[in-house]
């Protein structure tokens, strides 16, 4: 594996963050399956190394924009389980007081400008955040997360053109999980995705999205360069989603095989790979890792119980926050 963060504490935090995402999603899936969660949600499981590798290279004043498959970005950028589960259940103490739900969690205190339920819908917002940074002489960087499906949206080409013209500190992070909703990406994407960014004179990189250290190493370099005004950049992160497009997408053999899913889970899982590396390098023992996993599991269980017992917002809040004062 590639090397990026260089001390034990950093490595262990990256591992813990990946496990936190997986654990959050396993609990969210259970809430859906047991009909405790209104609506539906989109699981990030399998893509953890992307969110963690990138967000570990950012500070709280750096911004991200997220997607409908956004729980991983939210956790990786520093959000708390309790407020996230409350939001998933539509409770008052949720990040958005229950008004956003799974697809709209925003956590401004950690620089998360929010998930977006329009595919590609936040590409303008991310680029605008970078424009503001440049205008105000701030050195913060904005990372725009989106999936391979969103590369079919025209907005991306409009904003990449402006980002390149004005050298904006934005990094476009395309999580290529091979599927555009229920369709193979190769059926909807002509030519090369990186070449599209390169056509605007934007440096483009492809990286193994299942290798958290490789993702982190590349992101650290690009963030440093973007802070110096050398942006924008484009990263294509090759990854895989373990679940369907959303939690209700159970029977999906018509678009991808169980063998393919099995291969990614058994041979390329980002958490299993990083755990083996931590042990092999003598950074942590199996016992220490098991203890971390158990602690995270307990945190999640407690947060779910807290959220289930939490209050719904008062109905008087329905027309609150339509307009700001």
């Amino acid at each position, binding site marked *: 594996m590639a090397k990026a963060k260089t001390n034990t504490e950093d490595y262990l935090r990256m591992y813990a963050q990946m496990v936190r995402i997986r654990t959050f999603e396993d609990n969210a899936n259970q809430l859906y399956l047991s009909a405790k969660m209104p609506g539906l949600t989109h699981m990030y499981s399998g893509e953890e190394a992307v969110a963690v590798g990138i967000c570990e290279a950012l500070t709280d004043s750096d*911004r991200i*924009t997220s997607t409908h498959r956004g729980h991983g970005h939210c956790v990786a950028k520093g959000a708390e389980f309790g407020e996230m589960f409350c939001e998933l259940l539509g409770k008052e103490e*949720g*990040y*958005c*007081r*229950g*008004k*956003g739900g799974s697809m*709209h969690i*925003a956590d*401004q205190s950690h620089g998360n*400008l*929010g998930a*977006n339920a*329009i595919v590609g*819908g*936040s*590409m*303008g*917002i*991310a*680029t*605008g*955040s*970078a*424009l*503001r*940074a440049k*205008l*105000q002489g701030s050195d913060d960087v*904005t990372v725009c997360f989106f999936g391979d499906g969103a590369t079919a949206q*025209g*907005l991306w080409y*409009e*904003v990449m*053109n*402006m980002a390149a*013209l004005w050298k904006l500190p934005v990094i476009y992070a395309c999580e290529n999980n091979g599927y555009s909703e229920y369709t193979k990406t190769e059926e909807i994407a002509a030519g090369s995705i990186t070449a599209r960014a390169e056509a605007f004179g934007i440096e483009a990189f492809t990286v193994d999205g299942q290798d958290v250290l490789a993702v982190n190493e590349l992101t650290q370099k690009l963030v440093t360069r973007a802070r110096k005004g050398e942006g924008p950049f484009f990263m294509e992160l090759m990854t895989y989603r373990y679940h369907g497009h959303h939690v209700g997408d159970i029977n999906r053999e018509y678009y991808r095989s169980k063998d393919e899913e099995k291969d990614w889970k058994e041979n390329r899982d980002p958490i299993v790979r990083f755990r083996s590396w931590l042990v092999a390098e003598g950074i942590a023992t199996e016992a220490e890792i098991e203890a971390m996993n158990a602690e995270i599991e307990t945190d999640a269980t407690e947060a779910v119980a807290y959220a289930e017992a939490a209050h719904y917002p008062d109905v008087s809040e329905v027309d*609150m*926050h*339509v*307009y*700001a*004062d």
Partner: protein
Amino acid sequence: MREITLSQAVNEAIAEEMRRDDTVFLMGEDVAEAGTPFKVLSGLVEEFGTERVIDTPISEPGFVGLAVGAAMTGARPIVDLMFGDFIYLVMDQLCNQAAKQHYMSGGKLTVPMVLRTNMGATRRSAAQHSQSLQALVAHIPGLKVAMPSSAYEAKGLLKTAIRDNNPVVIFEDKLMYQDKAPVPEEEYLIPFGEAHVKREGSDITLIATSSMVQVAEKAAEMLAAEGINAEVIDPRTIVPLDEATLLESVKKTSRAIVIDEGHQSYGVTAEIASRLNEKAFYHLDAPVLRMGAMDVPVPFSPVLEDITVPTPEGVVENARKLCAGEMIHAA
């Protein structure tokens, strides 16, 4: 008092606010050296530089999206959308993104941006450069909508819009850019949601927006010669709407015509007329009439185009009938 054009009033409002607050910046197509096709923004790039007066590519969804993101992170962008007809191009950024961020985030995120655009037919520009699309955005909770009817309103409303913490869409009538009106030298702001009674009357209320205010005022003069005293009210902002002033007037006059240059069906006139019917029904002596643009795409040929929009003569005819009790059983 000095008189300046609506175009100069807009220019002054932006310059004053950019001097006052360095987070305010301007972006859009040909806003810098060209100063827009209507020359509304001429001179601003000389004072504020290309960093704050930014020429964009012809990418309306793209640059409106950038404005949303800049506004969410601490800037106050003013976006120039060259023609109101291009609103269709930016609907996702305006209605799904800008309008909903504050609500979806439970009040954490704000989008203090202004989208300046225009409206108005009879410029012989045909179906894609002549529309008045204020009803489309007024329908979306989270957006505010201002419709200045003169240079005075244009300046005062725009300054308020720039300081507002919400996305505001301002529609300027492109035929009025060269029209002059008295505008004070000293600073003033016009609060949102405060209608202006332009002319007092006792027989009928003419509620008119933007370009239609001058139509209503002319109609009121013609009606006065016939002994009918019309009250003319300009709501100035349709979101928020100063319902109280409109209701007070209608309760006094017991008759009303609502005039707006957008298409009549499902439009601004329909909304206002409906509120008057719901809240002043027992004070009315006649049905509230709507006068909007005809429900046709705006035609090019002048003889066709001119009959698509309300005229003072048309308003007079309707007012006369309402006051004579001729339209009570019109349906």
